[in-house]
């Protein structure tokens, strides 16, 4: 027997002066293999043409569709309704600016982060294109790739107690990016440079290691190990910093 789903969706359009935040219930029949992508589009096509949400790739790689699903941040396109109870709620991610309904502006937040943490490979000189590629050990390349898989979905931020309390906290997404460029042999920055960027309470020392981020990252990035590693390195760097006076 297929279930009848009751989805309670947060509705609010902050741009519209008449709009008040509210939960609206929508019902539909569950189908085999139904993801939240399919369910939300069905609701928009037949019941709520003005419902706002974001999907681009529908395959878990673009990071556009994160929302709070039955209480936990996750990617809507990769969530099967069969893994949820028959009645559940959908909320937009907290921390980020609400655009409307389930849509939030993770983009501006991520751009600001990218500028602040300078998340690009810092080279000594412009690449010389007549030369061959810079060699890199396959194991190192794999490690860099592993951290480069972050899709900037914002789930780790939505799950993080520090991020909710302290505006400006770079969160797991920011720290994992620092870890990524720190690993990269092409990046010329050293630990002192990285310390400048995240050796503070808005960076690694603000993290309380409760690891909600690690449990919820939809790409299963090794956040726990990376945060611990970075903390050790940055603490060491801080000591050197003090000694140098």
């Amino acid at each position: 027997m297929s279930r009848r789903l009751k989805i309670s969706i947060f509705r609010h359009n902050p741009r519209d002066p008449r709009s008040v935040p509210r939960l609206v219930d929508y019902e539909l029949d569950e189908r085999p293999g139904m993801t939240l992508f399919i369910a939300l589009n069905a609701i928009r096509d037949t019941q709520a043409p003005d419902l706002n949400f974001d999907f681009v790739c529908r395959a878990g790689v673009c990071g556009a569709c994160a929302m709070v699903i039955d209480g936990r941040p996750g990617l809507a396109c990769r969530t099967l309704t069969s893994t949820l109870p028959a009645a559940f709620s959908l909320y937009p991610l907290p921390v980020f600016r609400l655009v409307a309904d389930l849509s939030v502006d993770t983009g501006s937040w991520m751009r600001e982060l990218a500028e602040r943490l300078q998340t690009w490979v810092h080279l000594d000189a412009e690449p010389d294109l007549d030369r061959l590629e810079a060699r890199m050990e396959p194991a190192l390349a794999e490690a860099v790739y592993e951290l480069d898989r972050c899709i900037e979905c914002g789930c780790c931020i939505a799950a993080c107690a520090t991020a909710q309390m302290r505006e400006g906290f770079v969160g797991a997404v920011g720290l994992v990016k620092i870890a990524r460029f720190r690993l990269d042999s092409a990046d010329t920055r050293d630990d002192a440079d990285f310390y400048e960027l995240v050796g503070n309470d808005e960076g690694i020392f603000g993290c309380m290691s409760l690891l909600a981020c690690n449990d919820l990252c939809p790409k299963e990035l090794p956040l726990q190990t990376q945060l611990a590693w970075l903390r050790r390195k940055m603490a060491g760097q801080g000591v050197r910093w003090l000694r140098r006076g």
Partner: protein
Amino acid sequence: MNVAKRTFDAVIVGAGGAGLRAALQLSEAGLKTAVLTKVFPTRSHTVAAQGGVAASLGNSTEDNWHWHMYDTVKGSDWLGDQDAIEFMCKKANEVVIELEHYGMPFDRTDNGKIYQRPFGGHSMNYGQAPVMRSCAAADRTGHAMLHALYQRNVRANTQFFVEWMALDLIRDADGDVLGVTAMEMETGEVSIFHAKATIFATGGAGRIYYSSTNAFINTGDGVGMAARAGIPLEDMEFWQFHPTGVAGAGVLITEGVRGEGGILRNAQGERFMERYAPNLKDLASRDVVSRAMTTEINEGRGCGPDKDHVLLDITHLAPDTIMKRLPGIREIAIQFAGVDPIKAPIPVVPTCHYQMGGIPTNYKGQVVVPKDGNPNSPVAGFYAAGECACASVHGANRLGTNSLLDLLVFGKSAGETVVEDFQSGQLKLKPLPADAADVSLARLARLDGQTNGESVFDVGLEMRRTMQKHAGVFRFDNLLKEGVQKIGEVAERAKRTQIADKSKVWNVARMEALELDNLIEVARATMVSAEARKESRGAHVRDDAPDTAENPNGRDDANWLKHTLWYSEGNRLDYKPVNLKPLSDDVEPIALAKRTY
């Protein structure tokens, strides 16, 4: 309505791979540039590309750009322009190495070079054996590439207008392009972006088909805008159906899976590609594999209760290889097909994937139209790159991994051309005509005032069904004729779309109605161009143009070795010659031959 004006040196529409690569060129040269995009740059559809980017680095097997050029010309079924193809294949190593310096985390070989894998249609020594030419970051190459390009743009301080939808192209009485009108999606306000140069990098329009690997944002906005503004569309009858979309879900499974040893099997468990392409087998060109699969299914050898798909088998690969080289694929198979490919094969069907045609350009990224007897006369101020453009390097059929290469090479080339034209003082800020925004405002007023109209959803669905049935993997003369009439009717209905919600802020229904206008142009162009081309070539295969001694594979070079040009106004067709001459003397023209794998 009050229309704000903003002035820039250049405006780029689209922030996927091609848009970001072009933007980088402009930002680093110090041009004041606006990049308009419907979604945040790193969400763009380039992110979904899995397999890799082609470059004849020769890291894993011997290789050179001559072989790559030969494969691309042959893959295009000789409809690609050989000057543009030479340019692209020669530039490939440069743009890939550049990207590697920007931090793109490519897989590496044991000696630290970029790892390369085999891919469909790519061969060594002019078709003799598969070559390893595809540079990949596991099976998330597009994601890694898009992020590397974005990071570099943040460094260059590129200015993005995120969640802005371009509406119409602005041309003056001379036909020169002066920018675009665009709507801020959050407020519904319309602005004019007035610029010396306009670059379209808006991607494809795969959403004209019912079953598509394309994201919902791929609504052919640039192609539709160009068509409405009187620019002809080139070779729109050629669409690539990717052999391996997950049955039912449409999500893509990269060819890299077959590159790593994956095998296609029918209901009898037979490796049927051995019959269709004895040399390259499962790694034959995409159109060949898609048609072989469709033939198997049509002849009753499909799998599953409805015999409507075939199976992609990698159960014979070591679990380690799958985990390391194809982790994303395993994730997708588990999620969307409910099978773990380590243990069971994945159900797949050919699914619409890529638009070979588009806005006609030359290898410099300039948009070109017939004018005063010159079939390729540049339109002042107008450039295009990536899937929305037709350079034409893919001709009648694109090879896998040549799309990421296309957007890098021609994104960069369009950017370089703009920078040169700007620095030489050739680009001028021409005065805006008084009616610059009128077309867009009239479209919006029509939509708001419509009564007794059509639902956007219904018209869109009818369009997708019509395209799927009448202009799919195989084409039939009678279905195409009917299709032309049907799509004409759908286009008429699209002129009367109505939306219930008329609010200005975040009005999703309005955006979908505006996107439908663009899709409809693409659908009309496709159907009319396909009906008219009475031969089989590349991805366009007709029942009434079979393989004969006179016309091998049904290809009729005597009459049809030419590019289609479709004009929206009057649904009119024109043709222009294919450039069979390479750009330089470094290489001889690749002579016409029958295409076999």
